[in-house]
Structure formats: structure tokens, C-alpha cells
């Protein structure tokens, strides 16, 4: 699976990272050898092996349904780029 320039642009869009034509070219040059490194996996026969998602085979703990968090809006919004009337402001969202 060799990476194309369009792949790079598609990925950059999915990841919401701005790239122009020249940057996309540069990315292509950087990512291709890394994907080459990754390709090594493809040779190995892993049929019958269960994917391993966690280091330990544990089950999810359950939290009691009781309120533990109180309002700290001011503290949290102190680090926000743009707020008004307690809301986080972003460029207009078109539905």
C-alpha cells in the first residue's frame, strides 16, 4: 500500500491539519519510509491470534452514580481562547 499525495491530503483533512501543496509533498516524502518500516508486519501470519488491546486482561470498573463534580466554570474558562456568557465561542457552525 504505497502512499499517494491525495492520501496525504485526505489524512491531513481528517486530522484537521492545514497543508499546502508543497507541505503535502514534504509529508509524502517523510511518511513513506515510516510506512515502509510498518510494512514489515504484513509478512507475519497472525491467523488465530486474538488482538491485544490492554496490557492486563481486566474488566471495566463501575462508578457509583453520585455527583462528585461541582461547578468550576470560571476556573476552566480562564484558560479558554474565547468565551462569552459562559459559552465557548467558535466560528459559525453551519447545520
Amino acid at each position, binding site marked *: 500500500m504505497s502512499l499517494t499525495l491525495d492520501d496525504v491530503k485526505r489524512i491531513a483533512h481528517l486530522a484537521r491539519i492545514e497543508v499546502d501543496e508543497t507541505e503535502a509533498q514534504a509529508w509524502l516524502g517523510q511518511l513513506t519510509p515510516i510506512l515502509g518500516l510498518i510494512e514489515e508486519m504484513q509478512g507475519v501470519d497472525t491467523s488465530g491470534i486474538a488482538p491485544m488491546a490492554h496490557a492486563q486482561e481486566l474488566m*471495566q*470498573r*463501575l*462508578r457509583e452514580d453520585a455527583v462528585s*463534580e461541582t*461547578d468550576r466554570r470560571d476556573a476552566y474558562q480562564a484558560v479558554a481562547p474565547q468565551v462569552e456568557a459562559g*459559552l465557548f465561542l*467558535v466560528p*459559525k457552525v453551519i*447545520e
Partner: protein
Amino acid sequence: MQWEVVIGLETHAQLNTVTKIFSGAATAYGAEPNTQACAVDLALPGVLPVFNRAAAEKAVKFGLAVGARINRKSVFERKNYFYPDLPKGYQITQLELPIVAEGGKLHIHVGPSTGSGQAAPAGSGQGYEKDIRITRAHMEEDAGKSLHEDFHGMTGVDLNRAGTPLIEIVTEPDMRSSAEAVAYAKALHSLVRWIGICDGNMQEGSFRCDANVSVRPMGVEKLGTRCEIKNLNSFKFMEKAIEYEVRRQIELIEDGGKVVQETRLYDPDKDETRSMRSKEEANDYRYFPDPDLLPLVISERYIEDVLAQLPELPQAMSARFMSAYGLPAYDAAVLTSNKELADYFDATVNALRETLSPSSLPEYPEGHKGERDAEATQAKNAAKLAANWIIGDLSAALNKHGLDIAASPIASAQLAGLLTRIQDSTISGKIAKEVFAAMWEGEGEADAIIETKGLKQVSDSGAIEKIIAEIMDANPAQVAEYRSGKEKVFGFFVGLAMKASKGKANPAQLNELLKQKLAG
């Protein structure tokens, strides 16, 4: 050409937990913006999700209520996409292994009086029953809200709702008309409230439906291209939106066009659906198991415990009403359309049966069997009477005042008190309506009202004969007519007698005596 409509529904029901699905922040509706968005809900750097026990319990409750298989192991996955109301840049949901697996179904009763002009199956004039299969139900977190009223050209984001637990309930494409879709949505809406997992408040968005609609030529197996309709935040809109969409698709195809698979938004003001271009952009959600969460394991024991907490479900209750009380399917369906109503009915019947004195029963020759029959008959009569009044006068009054049964000014015990007096013929049905009105106005118990207003039925033959004598003397011409064979005028005498007795004369007795006297 004859077209067949195919509809599948996806419903997002907010689970009525106290806290969020992955944080300890409150889920209460209507708080000041972002005052119920904690560090986890805001996805601050370094925070981690911790799963809410109550969300699992409510989801399992639902699965068991619809008879679905519960996955002993379910897995949380990340659905990755960027949106301002999605703080982490991904939504935690379930894809491969949802908590509620296949096998569920919901029984619906499609009433006769559904305003939709759509064809119900042949001979279903009285309405019909149907099972809708439920494909799966999975848990996920709700998103926040984008407020579009203008902040100098910007959108405001409120994350109070972010992280509120949802179950998304997905059906097979089993519905064939907007009427069926609405019947399913109503049955589901009733069920989630019935088992206490969702408040069902559609205005506040706790119960949201999306419909997948397609059409195909009658008799064709292959499904047509479907469109997903969003923003169906009331049953009325759902019906209108589906009907509009069906018309749109049929016209499109008949004009030689093609239906494109897309998400469409219903606009209630224009009563039309329109394409949501913003959602059209090709999405690649890059699902993968959330490494911050471990597999959710549900034990056999746990399932038994939850099963034990389940109340009698609508379908079972409706069946009981039919078998034990001999109610018609329609009455049973109406009475079990929500839990409060069903409980009210049950309570009324029980109260009524207690207050009925044995003496009001006819004598039966031989022993116990007779008493059992008597019991049964009595129960059926009581139930039928209660059903008629609850579906009739009570529901009418409630609708008129825009109240729901829980807020009824007449408690079930009070209604039973009234019905008792009808059964033991202390008052006639006609008088009962007058008493009912008084009770509605809060004038007290039936007996008290009957007493103070002196509404007791007159069953004293002496008194009735006296009235008859008077009206016969006052109307010799009509008496002559009757005797000459014009028996139609009998009703005329009944009317006068009732009027004279202010409606209190025992109707049966009056007819009896009147016949005798007129016969001369």
C-alpha cells in the same frame, strides 16, 4: 405502480442517571451554560473516563424488557470526528460489541383511527397488531449543544449535555407506514418510561428519533435507497416528515429520477425535508477500541438481578386485562399505553371489587363453583365498567383540561366509589355523570355528593306509581293513543316520569309499572 414503504427507526434515549456516563458531573436539564461540564466533560489534557454503573443497569433493563440477548462482554470504542460540541474530538460509543445484542422486539398496536391516509393491511379496519424487531441497542455519550443565535458572527458552545448517557435503539426496516413508525415510536417511548430508564421528554431532547425511509415497488424484495430523516422531535412531526419523504421519493422515482442516500432534516414550518449538505462531507470515523476503558463484563447473576427488578410489562399487562377481565384488545392496548394509566385502571378495578358487597350478587344454588363464577363475572363487570369510564368520561375530562392521568383530580379509589353506586343501582348512569362532574370539581366522595344532592334513585313503587298516576291524568289523549295501539308514545310517558322524578326513578322499575298502568 403500487409502492411499498420501508421504514427503520434509530432512537436516542437519554438514560435518566444522576451523573454523566463517564464523569461525576450532574445531568440535570436547564442549568447555566457549562456549569455542569467538569474537567472530564471538557476533555482537559490528562483527564480520563470512568464508567457510570447506573448507565449499564438501565441499558440492560431495556435489553431484557424487549427480550434481546445481552452481550456478556461489550466494548467501548472511539468514533473520531471534529465538531465543537464534541470536546475530545471523538465520541465514546459501542460498535462491534454493543451491550444489547440481537433478538429484541417491540409489540405495537396500530390503531384504526390513525389520521394518515396510508393503507393498513387488508381487513384491519379495527387496527392491527405487529412486532417490530430491534437489531441492537448500544450505549454512548451525548454531545454538547451549539447555540446559533449570533455572537458577533460566532457560535456559542454549551457542554452541559456533553457526556449525558444515551442508548441508541436501532430497529430492522420492519415498518411499512408512517402510522406503524409512529405506533412503534409511541410504544418505545411508553416502554422506556414504563421501566424507568428515560424521562421521555421530547422537548428537552431526552427522546430523539431518526427515521430511515425508502420505497420499493410492491412485491419487490430488494430495498430501495434510503434517506435518514433527522429532527423528528414529536410524533406528529415524525408522521408528517415520513409522509412527505415517502411522497418525495415516489414522485422522484416516477419522474425517472433516483433517490440519493443522504441525511435529510425535517423542517416543521415548511413541512418538508431538506438535504443536510453539512453532513454530506465524506466521513471516516476511524473507530477503534477506547484504550482508556476496559471491556464491560455483565454476569449471569447481574442479569437475573436486573430481571427481578423489572415491572410487569405493557404487553403482559394488556394480555392479563384481556384474559382476566375480558376487555377487548383495543381497550387493553389503550389502558396499557402508559404505566400511570394502567396502574390507575388496575387500582380502580381492585377498589371496586372490594367495595362491592356480596349481597349485591344474585343467589347461586350450589356451592363454591357458583361463587367462583360469581367472582369472575363480578370482576369482569367491574373491569368493563371501569374501562368504559376511564377511557370515556375520565380521559375526555383529562384531555379537555390538558392533564395526564397522574394529575387527575379524581383518584382511582374515588372513581371506584362512584362506580360502586352504579353497580348497586343506587344511581343511574345518567346521574353518575352529574356526580362525576361534582367529584371533578372537588366536591368530595361520590356517596357524600349523592347524599347532599339527594340523587338517590327512587325504587319505592308507591312513589313511582304516584308520579305515573299524575302524568296519566294530565295526558288522557296520549293514554288513549297508547291503548289504541300506538305504543310509540310509551317513550313520551317515560320522559315525563323521569323529568318528574328529576331522573331519579329506577328506570327498570318505571318501565315495569308504566306498562301495567297504561295497559289499564
